[in-house]
């Protein structure tokens, strides 16, 4: 089922067939145990020059990439622009509202780790879908691996157009939560509020926040995920973020393994 990795770049999950996504996840298995060692290093990329190219401010992804040559940019398509002009590998660390493939890969890895497989699971992605690159990469990856995906949020941030991507759209979180195997909550961007995409944080919490009370609707084995940083008390209550369903800290740990795998695979090609 696996095949050799032949890509110079990782630009997005839309272009990646299921077997290549699985190949990255399997490669990440090997790196996962590296993260448990005293010295969290492998010699695979020794001697290579890697460049951090963060055009958009971010601290988190930079930390888990550590050695990375990668691009984060506010404009959709910027990594493709760079990849077309460079011999070196380009790894997309988030471009505008387009894709964030390593985040989606670590989300997939975490689901697969906790639930054995992804096919057949029902994943709800909740929040600001319209402006989210994490949502898009997750949608592409989850659908390719056979999950059922429901997007949840206000109609202004989850337009019906998304149904054409092969997902379901719901504006009623209480109807979705009891059926979901995974609930991935996205950060609500406060600046959107000024543009009148929804009436305010209070109303958002009332209709879409994963409160303690709403968490009672969840299946016992439902996974709660969040790409961080969390707005505690907005998209998710603290008790739920830190509760039994939550795999948010596993996502952080798995992020290191998945990103090491991506660097290993793409770095090997560019040499």
């Amino acid at each position, binding site marked *: 089922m696996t095949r050799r990795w032949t890509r110079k770049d990782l630009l997005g999950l839309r272009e990646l067939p299921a077997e290549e996504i699985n190949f990255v996840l399997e490669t990440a298995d090997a790196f996962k145990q590296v993260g448990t060692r005293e010295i969290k290093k492998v010699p695979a990329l020794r001697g290579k020059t890697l460049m951090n190219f963060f055009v958009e401010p971010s601290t988190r992804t930079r930390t888990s990439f550590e050695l990375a040559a990668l691009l984060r940019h506010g404009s*959709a*398509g910027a990594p*493709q622009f760079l990849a077309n002009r460079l011999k070196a590998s380009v790894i997309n660390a988030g471009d*505008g509202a387009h894709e964030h493939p390593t985040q989606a890969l670590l989300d997939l890895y975490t689901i697969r780790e906790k639930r054995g497989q992804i096919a057949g699971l029902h994943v709800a992605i909740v929040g600001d879908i319209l402006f989210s690159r994490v949502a898009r990469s997750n949608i592409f990856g989850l659908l390719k691996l056979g999950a059922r995906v429901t997007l949840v949020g206000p109609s202004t941030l989850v337009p019906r157009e998304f149904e054409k*991507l092969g997902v379901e759209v719901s504006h009623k979180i209480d109807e979705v939560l009891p059926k979901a195997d995974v609930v991935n909550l996205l950060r609500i961007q406060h600046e959107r509020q000024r543009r009148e995409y929804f009436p305010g944080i209070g109303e958002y919490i009332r209709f879409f926040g994963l409160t303690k009370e709403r968490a009672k609707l969840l299946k016992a084995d439902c996974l709660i995920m969040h790409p961080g940083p969390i707005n505690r008390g907005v998209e998710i209550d603290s008790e739920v973020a830190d509760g039994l369903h939550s795999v948010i800290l596993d996502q952080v740990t798995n992020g290191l393994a998945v990103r090491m795998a991506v660097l290993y695979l793409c770095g090997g090609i560019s040499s």
Partner: protein
Amino acid sequence: MRRDLLVSTTIIRNGRVIDPANRRDEISDLFIVGGKIVGSKFAIRSPQSEIEEIDATGLIVAPGLIDIHVHLREPGFSHKETIESGARAAAAGGFTTIVCMPNTSPVPDNAGTIAWIKDRASAIGCVNVLPTGAISKNLAGEELAPIGSLAQAGVVAITDDGHCIQNHEVMRRAVEYARMVGVPVLDHCQDYNLVGNGVVHEGYWSTLLGLPSWPAAGEEAIVMRNVLLAELCDHPIHCQHVSAAGSVRLIREARGRGVKISGEVCPHHVALTDEAIQNFDTNCKVNPPLRSRTDVDALLDGIADGTLSILCSDHAPHADFEKEVEFDVAPFGMIGLETELGLFIDLLVHKHGRIDIVRLIEMYSVEPARLLKLDSGSLSTGARADVTLIDSGLEWTVRVDQFQSASRNSPFDGWKLKGRAVRTIVGGKTVWKL
């Protein structure tokens, strides 16, 4: 015969003369003497050696084509295009007359800038360059430009193209004033609130790619506004580069009631859909954006039933270094003068069969001449001899590196097209031939 009485004589032999203004479509010779179209009996007085003969066997002999929507970028942005390079591109595309838009620097919101453009164009002496004037001072959409003085300086229309007057009251007064001085109004139809920071059509591809987008309603809202104001003021408003199905529907309904509203179509809006943006090619970033298949089909219907009566390019040159940036940062626009005729013949006549070549020529001659009240667009006896020879069956490949334009921002490089101009004659003089 005394030599000083001799005037240049050209005979275009044996072509298919298509002259929609005179309902003429026949295999015939066309006679040009002293830069004007003449009847056959006047043409034979010159000695044989003084007559230029052009064999047009198998070719269409059409009135010189008119493109009413061209950005020449001069004054102010001559690194993109100059009046000269733009005029040569027009000639190479088969156009004898082009109408240039006012988003230059300085803006032609004053008679002096209009005079400068006209002087430059006449010094170059390639094709006819007809300037438009701004509707509002500095295209700001707030105060009216001196529309009367602009009309006296010779503008053929007023427009804030590239911008759209958002204040309906300002637009209303502009149209009323334009009626008094007798110039039509051209409008780039966009509601800025609905457009926002959008750079592509709001639909499937914007959803997939996460690019900032705006809905067709952003154009349709202003088309509707223009229908109402054309009716209120009883004066022509022409909607530029119509891209949306709803705009076609609004214009169709209004024209059916006799409202003085019209619309034009650019080749890229029927040759491409928003699917073309999927690789973030900034040459496909245009304003209004490439839209959905539904919109393209509606444009084709509008062309077929006469709702959309004028074809044009919205030729919008940009330098490589300006286009070679992130998609959302790149400037809008693509060049079109040297591909539009080929694309439209290929798509409208050959591929889709929506109009015949006679109507296509009419949409490039009679229709724009009527809108702008130009003394061109026909092969009538006595008319200035602006003539385009077209080979409607010629297969050719677009090569941007062979363009006359100073810019290269076209997504059509490498496209194989059927049909193109092979000779362009302005005032009896060949300004370009293949």
